[in-house]
């Protein structure tokens, strides 16, 4: 918002002169209701001095009409009847400010999202709704008062939650602009799911080759405080001034003393499934997540450890770095912006009993296939069948497992990456085993990105991978050799098809993290219907959340591949940098305010306030009454909702303003 030398002297006590501007919004509004009639009707209401209509008031021409009226002194309150205020309230507020009118003397009537778009078949009804919404906005406008924005400083530090490819890229870009970053990940290493991938489509770049340099860059970067094996436990405050509590989970190993010799791993008697390899291999209770892990630290998994004491012996751990009594450490940091890049979970296909995952040994998931293909995976890049550890001569992939499922409780969305990764995995295997028969059972092939269509074409044409358009109807196991017998329909040939394959890969989709509620509760951000974090606007603000200062990026916002994740990481970093570069941010001054003569000191508001922003003070005239700390107040109104005497009120949503919209008296 720009400072202007033009300023119209408004005290809030002069008679309101309300200008009503009804927008056609192209045909969105004008095509359903009679805009001229709405204008004429508005002009009949008390205190309305100007009524105008235009095709697009948000355009420069439209805004100019409003500004001219303000500058000519014809109006000192502005009501625009158009789209949702969540769309253009800032636009018109700026226009008012530029014309010299205090930006808070503006009110919007939503006659598009809340009228013409939802009552398209009932134009008379839509007209009545629009008319009333305008009347209500005018009523509120009469009771608006000029307000000053609050300016708060922005701490030039950022918190990035999640250190996968998205989080790491965001962190690096932030440091390039000169800002300090706390990079937190709850796993013992950075790298996220990308570290589990072997090759990346469509270039067949080795995932580790492009990932590990980034990981090294992170560990070397002086401006990044890397907090792995840590979790954010509390966030309070507001944009520019977030107070964050981070819990550093105990490794039970003194990282300073530990010299990384690894003898403890050999000595440990406890063997458990290795979660990095998705259960296809084992690890010890004392472990490093994977060889290239950064930081390269050993950790004891206390859930599996039996505290036998073997690793703690001097003969095993010479530096005596083992400490079973290690405790979590809590630190508190102040940051200006937060970026959420918490990634995803793989869909677990056990519930799809018809495909036999968990029952037949030779049915595996896409990520498990990735680990088999990985050069540092359980079979060092030579995939084998789980049943007999022989290389399969035939493989079938099933697409859309756990995605595009419109049944009760299913994920309706497309996971975006499975068509491409199945093609990639099929190609990779075919390259080493040209004689193998590979089938990909699909509904649609989504090859939308740069080079993706060509990659897919080549897989089908040059590599001879069989793409069968059909959903698999039945899956059985051949008990003699654990082969998988698949029955499906080839819908393009319009024939049933039955194949017996040695390995069956379910191309499982992406799901939001099972515990994403811990993030939404922590940061008060929302989730969309599919369970991923909700962006502020699906088209124009894909990395912002509705909470200023908090951004989302990567798969946590919705399924996407690596290039799109990195693009969002850069977008979120740029947005955060924008806030921090400015150094200060403006806050709407919609706070709670007390009328001391009305307050009886009952204390209900004090109890209701979730932010502890209200307390008792001893007023010389009125005794012990309530008092608001504006720095903590968020203007939610939980206090005013309970006040019997209307002693505490919210500026911007005051009792008088709301009453004027309810009452039938003008």
């Amino acid at each position, binding site marked *: 918002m720009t400072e202007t030398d033009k300023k119209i002297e408004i005290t809030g006590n002069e008679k309101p002169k309300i200008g009503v501007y009804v927008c056609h919004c192209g045909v969105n509004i004008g095509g359903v*209701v*009679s805009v001229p*009639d709405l204008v*004429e*009707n508005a002009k009949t209401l008390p205190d309305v001095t100007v009524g105008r209509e235009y095709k697009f008031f948000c355009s420069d021409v439209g805004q100019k009409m409003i500004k001219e009226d303000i500058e000519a002194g014809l109006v000192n309150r502005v009501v625009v009847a158009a789209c*949702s*205020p*969540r769309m253009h309230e800032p636009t018109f507020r700026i226009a008012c400010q530029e014309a010299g009118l205090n930006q808070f003397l503006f009110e919007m009537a*939503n006659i*598009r*999202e*809340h*009228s013409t*778009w*939802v*009552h*398209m*078949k*009932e*134009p*008379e*009804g839509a*007209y*009545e*709704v629009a008319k*009333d*919404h305008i009347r*209500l906005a005018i009523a509120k406008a009469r009771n608006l008062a000029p307000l000053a924005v609050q300016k708060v400083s922005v701490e030039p530090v950022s918190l990035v939650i999640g250190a996968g490819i998205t989080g790491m890229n965001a962190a690096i870009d932030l440091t390039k602009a000169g800002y300090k970053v706390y990079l937190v990940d709850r796993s013992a290493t950075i790298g996220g799911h990308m570290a589990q991938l072997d090759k990346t489509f469509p270039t067949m770049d080795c995932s580790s080759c492009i990932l590990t340099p980034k990981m090294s860059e992170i560990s070397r970067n002086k401006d990044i405080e890397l907090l792995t094996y840590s979790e954010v436990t509390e966030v309070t405050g507001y944009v520019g001034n977030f107070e964050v509590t981070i819990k550093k989970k105990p490794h039970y190993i003194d990282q300073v003393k530990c010299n990384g010799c690894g003898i403890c791993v050999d000595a440990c008697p406890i063997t458990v499934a290795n979660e990095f390899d998705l259960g296809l291999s084992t690890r010890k209770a004392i472990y490093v997540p994977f060889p290239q892990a950064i930081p390269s630290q050993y950790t004891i998994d206390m859930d599996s450890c039996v505290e036998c004491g073997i690793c703690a012996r001097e003969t095993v751990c010479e530096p005596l770095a083992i400490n079973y009594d290690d405790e979590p450490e809590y630190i508190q940091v102040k940051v200006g912006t937060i970026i959420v890049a918490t990634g995803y979970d793989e869909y677990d296909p056990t519930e799809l009993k018809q495909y036999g995952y968990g029952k037949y040994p030779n049915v595996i998931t896409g990520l498990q296939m990735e680990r088999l293909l990985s050069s540092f995976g359980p079979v060092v890049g030579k995939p084998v069948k789980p049943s007999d550890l022989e290389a399969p001569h035939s493989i079938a992939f099933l697409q859309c497992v756990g995605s595009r499922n419109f049944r009760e409780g299913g994920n309706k969305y497309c996971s975006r990456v499975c068509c491409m990764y199945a093609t990639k995995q099929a190609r990779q295997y075919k390259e080493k085993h040209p004689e193998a028969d590979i089938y990909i059972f699909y509904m649609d092939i989504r090859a939308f990105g740069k080079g993706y269509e060509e990659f897919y074409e080549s897989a089908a044409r040059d590599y001879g991978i069989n793409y069968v358009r059909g959903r698999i109807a039945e899956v059985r196991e051949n008990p003699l050799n654990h082969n998988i017998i698949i029955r499906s329909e080839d819908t393009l040939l319009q024939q049933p098809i039955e194949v017996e394959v040695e390995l069956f890969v379910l191309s499982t989709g992406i799901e939001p993290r099972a515990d994403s509620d811990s993030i*939404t509760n922590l940061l*008060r951000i*929302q989730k*969309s*219907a599919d369970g991923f974090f*909700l962006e502020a606007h699906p088209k124009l603000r894909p990395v912002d959340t*509705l*909470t200023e200062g908090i951004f989302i990026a990567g798969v946590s916002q919705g399924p996407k591949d690596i290039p799109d994740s990195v693009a969002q990481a850069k977008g979120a970093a740029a947005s955060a940098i924008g806030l921090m570069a400015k150094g200060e941010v403006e806050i709407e001054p*919609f706070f709670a305010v007390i009328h001391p003569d009305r307050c009886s000191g009952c204390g209900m508001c004090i109890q*209701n306030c*979730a*932010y502890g922003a209200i307390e008792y003070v001893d007023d010389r005239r009125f005794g012990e009454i309530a008092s608001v700390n504006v720095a903590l107040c*968020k203007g*939610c*109104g*939980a206090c*005013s*909702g*309970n*006040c019997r005497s*209307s002693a505490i009120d*919210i500026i*911007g*949503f005051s*009792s008088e303003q*709301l*009453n004027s*919209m*309810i*009452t*039938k*008296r003008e």
Partner: protein
Amino acid sequence: MTEQAIEEKKSESKEWEPKIIAFLCNWCSYAGADLAGVSRIQYPPNIRIVRVPCSGRINAYFIIKSLTDGWDGVLISGCHPGDCHYISGNLVARRRFAIIKELLEFFGIEPGRVNFMWASAAEGERFAVLVRKATEIVKKLGPNKKFEKKW
């Protein structure tokens, strides 16, 4: 349609339509109503929407005043419990809503006139479904006569 044409049509049609004032919380329900609009989900034109910062802002006075000042019904919508942008505004409001409902019923004032719901910013469809439901309920109750003043 012109204003005149609508007046004529209104006097033709005999069916009474309720007028319901809807208080929607800015962060969840108002956004949900916007989403219903963006998705072009249709619902009957009986509600008039007032934006509030949080369902916790709703004082019993707004609800009762709406009934005394001629609205046939009141609808209040906030974030789902646990999702409130202001942490607990909807939770303190929920208890108030319970008391209001119980007292309205005890006084013999049709409790169906005042309805409460939760709808998140992603639930455009749910918003429309519940608005339709509330409209039906109020419609069955007929015009709000109990608060008609004589003078």
